[in-house]
């Protein structure tokens, strides 16, 4: 399976995803330069972490106008798999491919730390190899990850089972302390209605090798791979 990793001038997680896909999972990966409207036949598009255009004005605000994003939108339209992590999530919301927005952390500063996530839905191509209610451990690294959405739209998300990850404690409880950025309803990751576009603030690629402290992130890649195998 071929992963296409989008590279904006200020992206920095692309090589981490590349390393995990190619060296750890032994799959194929290529970089997609933001100025080129060409996905090089990728089966899954990844929007990595970083500060796409310095994240001036708003995170992801400018990136969404890049030529590559028009292709990503079409690709998603056709049902292609799109995964956005951290800055990638922010860009997907700005581009309107995912609902909601990401605001300044309520603690008012950048946080790079480990968090626990509760899998809220395994009915996505990105979590099918996980089980609902399962607790996984991954790092976050962002200053603007406070998920927000208005009530009506939140209701929609819940009804359509679009909330995929919630911040929780080790035991899976949604405690205030376990919410690292003040996200509404502890929301850490959501998918679109069609379930082929997923965004999350945490970094699954940083949790794919035991030597780095967790392999929980691998389940997401495993899900994608076996979805693809079965398709």
């Amino acid at each position: 399976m071929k992963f296409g990793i989008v590279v904006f001038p200020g992206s920095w997680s692309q090589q981490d995803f590349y390393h995990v896909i190619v060296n750890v999972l032994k799959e194929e990966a290529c970089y997609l330069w933001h100025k080129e409207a060409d996905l090089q036949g990728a089966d899954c598009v990844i929007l990595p972490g970083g500060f796409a255009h310095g994240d001036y004005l708003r995170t992801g605000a400018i990136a969404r106008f890049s030529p590559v994003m028009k292709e990503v939108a079409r690709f998603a339209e056709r049902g292609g798999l799109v995964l956005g992590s951290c800055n990638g999530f922010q860009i997907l919301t700005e581009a309107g491919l995912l609902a909601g927005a990401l605001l300044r952390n309520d603690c008012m500063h950048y946080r790079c730390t480990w968090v626990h996530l509760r899998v809220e839905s395994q009915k996505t191509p990105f979590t099918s190899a996980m089980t609902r209610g399962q607790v996984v451990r991954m790092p976050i690294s962002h200053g603007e990850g406070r998920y927000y959405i208005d009530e009506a739209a939140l209701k929609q998300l819940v009804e359509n089972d679009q909330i995929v990850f919630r911040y929780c404690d080790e035991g899976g409880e949604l405690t205030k302390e376990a919410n690292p950025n003040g996200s509404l309803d502890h929301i850490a990751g959501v998918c679109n209605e069609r379930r082929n576009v997923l965004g999350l603030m945490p970094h699954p690629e940083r949790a794919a090798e035991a030597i780095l402290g967790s392999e929980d992130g691998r389940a997401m890649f495993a899900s994608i791979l076996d979805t693809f195998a079965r398709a």
Partner: protein
Amino acid sequence: MLTAKIYVTLKPGVLDAQGDTVKSALETLGFRGVGDVRIGKFLVIRLDGHAREQAAAQVEEMCRRLLANPVIEDYSFELEEAGR
């Protein structure tokens, strides 16, 4: 030549973490009677060779497409003769 003064503010419903931090900081500094604090963006854009009405339309579009995010932000603006 015109200058556009653009105000981008968080929608009323949206928690303003920065505003709240500033509020409590002001209180720690001993300021009394500080109510709600809301913090937004203030953009000043110079526009060359535009007629007023055409400029207004332009700025409106800038706000819709880039400067504000409708999910969380409202915007408003004024146009002034530059130099002021």
